[in-house]
């Protein structure tokens, strides 16, 4: 990919000092590299305790079951007494996306998609919004595209069913109750009547 400043940025008509400012930011972005994805355990911000309370560290998911149980009990008592940090508490985070994933067409398919994943609510349901372009409309009756989780080299769990129009990108919203980690991947499959579920994979996670 070409990452030259002139290739990425419309710099026509910029004053020299403005041009220099943008080039500096451009260089900083290249030097910094991509920010890491937040792990699922850190997606939701901790609840701040009141000013007079002490703070305890959240238990990490990799600890032993016994330790986790002890820490969970400790936290439960602490919360009852006045509130400490609570791990993975769902907060009203509005529409703040916690992860954005890109998908592209499989094989010769030229489609592209972005998947915006929101924070889980208190019941573990997550909003996801798919924007896709370049997929051909399906002509056959009852034919649809399926957004599915990709695990162990196969499409496993259904996230939602959608169709696309002939013009422009299509945006659809779903809700899923699945635990989503940094390693979670999705595919889009094309399912036609008479074809065995989950059909043919037409898009994969980049």
């Amino acid at each position, binding site marked *: 990919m070409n990452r030259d400043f002139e290739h990425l940025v419309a710099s026509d008509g910029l004053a020299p000092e403005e041009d220099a400012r943008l080039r500096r930011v451009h260089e900083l972005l290249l030097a910094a590299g991509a*920010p890491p994805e*937040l792990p699922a355990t850190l997606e939701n911000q901790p609840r701040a305790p009141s000013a007079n309370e002490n703070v305890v560290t959240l238990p990490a998911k990799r600890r032993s079951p016994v330790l986790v149980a002890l820490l969970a009990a400790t936290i439960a008592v602490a919360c009852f007494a006045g509130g400490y940090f609570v791990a993975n508490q769902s907060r009203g985070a509005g529409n703040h996306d916690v992860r954005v994933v890109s998908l592209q067409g499989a094989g010769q398919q030229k489609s592209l998609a972005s998947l915006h994943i929101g924070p889980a609510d208190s019941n573990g349901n997550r909003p996801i919004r798919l924007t896709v372009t370049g997929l051909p409309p399906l002509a056959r009756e009852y034919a649809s595209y399926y957004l599915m989780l990709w695990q162990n080299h196969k499409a496993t769990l259904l996230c939602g069913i959608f169709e696309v129009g002939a013009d422009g990108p299509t945006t659809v919203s779903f809700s899923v109750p699945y635990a989503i980690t940094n390693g979670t991947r999705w595919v889009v499959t094309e399912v036609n009547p008479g074809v065995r579920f989950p059909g043919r994979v037409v898009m994969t996670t980049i």
Partner: protein
Amino acid sequence: MCSDGELIERTGAGDRSAFDKLYRRYARPVFGLALSRLGDRGRAEDAVQETFASVWRSARTYKAERGPGAPWLYTIARNAIVDRSRARTELPVEVPDEPSLELGPDERAEQAWTRWHVHGALERLPERERELISLAYWSELSQTEIAAQLGIPLGTVKTRTRSALLRLADILEGELE
């Protein structure tokens, strides 16, 4: 948009929404810094939690007149990460025969600060601009493919990238004031 310093001061006064905003803004930079220093995701997660616990405890000690908020947060994060790295059991290593091509301590520190600074500023961009920057700089997509994905003309991709860079420049320069 509130500055980091304002959010820290409000956190020090017990404002939970300010603390939440700080978390949203700096969780990823802290995690990135911790991951690069510790090389272990679990320890990095612990360091993030300890960092924000310290932020909550210490926010009232922050004095805006001594400097902007980002370096203050960076110091807290670095201390939490150092504490984590001390707890790590170091394995004996063999002394190499040839000089290492890896960055020295000064270069690593500068690189870490750059990442911190830039990633923190990115979190303050509107979602639309943040996504565009991510696609333009760190995805494998061409400009034409990005335009197709976002459903906008190629020229608009470039002008929006310019707008996003201008906003980033304002944020980055503002923090240095």
